[in-house]
């Protein structure tokens, strides 16, 4: 987990193929309040482009993404 960012909801999306990580995160973001943050962990390399494009389209904000071996970790703030 990131030290600086306060996470309100964790989503383990490891092993899910595209487009399921985006589908799940779209639902998940609606389950937190505006301004709250989701930490989503994927293994799908496509999410490196899909998540930023989804965030721009849906009006949410990716605060940070980290790659660590197999996993990719996104911190997404609900802003829409």
């Amino acid at each position: 987990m990131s030290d600086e960012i306060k996470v309100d909801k964790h989503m383990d999306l490891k092993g899910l193929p595209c487009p399921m990580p985006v589908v799940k995160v779209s639902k998940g973001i609606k389950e937190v309040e505006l301004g709250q943050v989701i930490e989503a962990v994927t293994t799908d390399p496509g999410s490196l482009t899909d998540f930023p494009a989804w965030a721009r389209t849906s009006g949410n904000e990716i605060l940070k993404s980290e790659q660590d071996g197999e996993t990719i970790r996104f911190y997404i703030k609900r802003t829409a």
Partner: protein
Amino acid sequence: MDQKTRDDLLTLFQSKLNEAMRFYLETCTRCGTCTEACHAYASMGQVKYIAAYRHEIIRRIYKKYFKGRGKVWPSVGEAKELNEMALEELYEAAWSCTGCRRCMVYCPFGVDTQMLMSIAKLLLVGASAEPEILTLLADTSIEKGKSLELYKEGFLAGLKRLEEEVVKGWQMEAGETVIPVDVEGADLLYVALAGAHSIVPAAVVFNAARENWTLSFFEAVNFGAFVGDPTRTKLILDRIINEATRLKVKEVCICECGTAYRVMQQLAGRRPFKVSSITDVQARYIREGRIKLSRSTFKGSITYHDPCQMARNAGVIDAPRFILRHLTDDFREMTDDIRYNWCCGGGGGLVALGEDTLDFRMKSSRIKTEQVQETGAQILATACENCHTQLENLNDHYKMGVKVRFLSSMVADALVA
């Protein structure tokens, strides 16, 4: 529903009324031949899943607002007002139909349920009553096309993570590019899905065949087509056509995604390149001696599920069988006539709706499960992402005990030098 909304929706309806659509709307004689054709009806026995019942709702709205011309026109039932309730019925009809067109093969007039359901889907988009996640996914794809520079770095970083696996599948000479991208003058542009499973095995086979290829920046899947929005469908398609034109490739090869292949094949219009499915391309490599496969890689019998959008609706029938004959001595057909193959029950966007449609997908596809089990095969191969996900779900749900595999990855696994 207010008058303005209704008028707007009727304008959308009108935009769909070409000659073929009018024929489908005015010709059904309610003969009932299509009754047993739909897997949802065959599996669940509910009248609302009969193809002709699904179109009847659209036909009645047509009768109320548009002028019919067909001879059998009087056989259409009561005229129906387009209102909120009608929208709910349209949703039920269209979003339980996979667009597999099995019913069309049975219909003596060739009434195309998928085309008729495209009216329902368009009206739902117009009324903002479509499954919104599909529109969001479509818009995400369009956004990638508009602002490619923003996403390039992420895309290339994603590919870097896959290179090692590709080399494991087929050794490259030092200095050779493992996953080429943006290569002007390449012979073939491969359009994959975003996941490793769609890129790695394909890359292995292209490299083994010494193909002069390049990977598309864009994913093949067209969520605009799933949601039934022609404008979004075209914007998503255009990203790939523009890339192929810019790179001056001779061939665009679509990954194992039935809808993507059919959309590219049938909606791309005049284009300076040939469109192929990866199944066709891999069969060609075998035929030309560019790759060789071992028949002993896979133990046990193999059956093949023809994705409706590849086989019945786009004619990719011989290539997978040709490949399978090079993979096994024990290939088992599911059906004598591929045109009548049962749909897996996952197409038309249902699989992309994930858990929301899971219960219906499992119940409506019991008949598919029986068809698979009757073959007695241990491996169930297919060549479409949607079908693969749905068949895996069915395998878990009905405990079929088969191994579901992508045909292209079986080719990669069976490569011999």
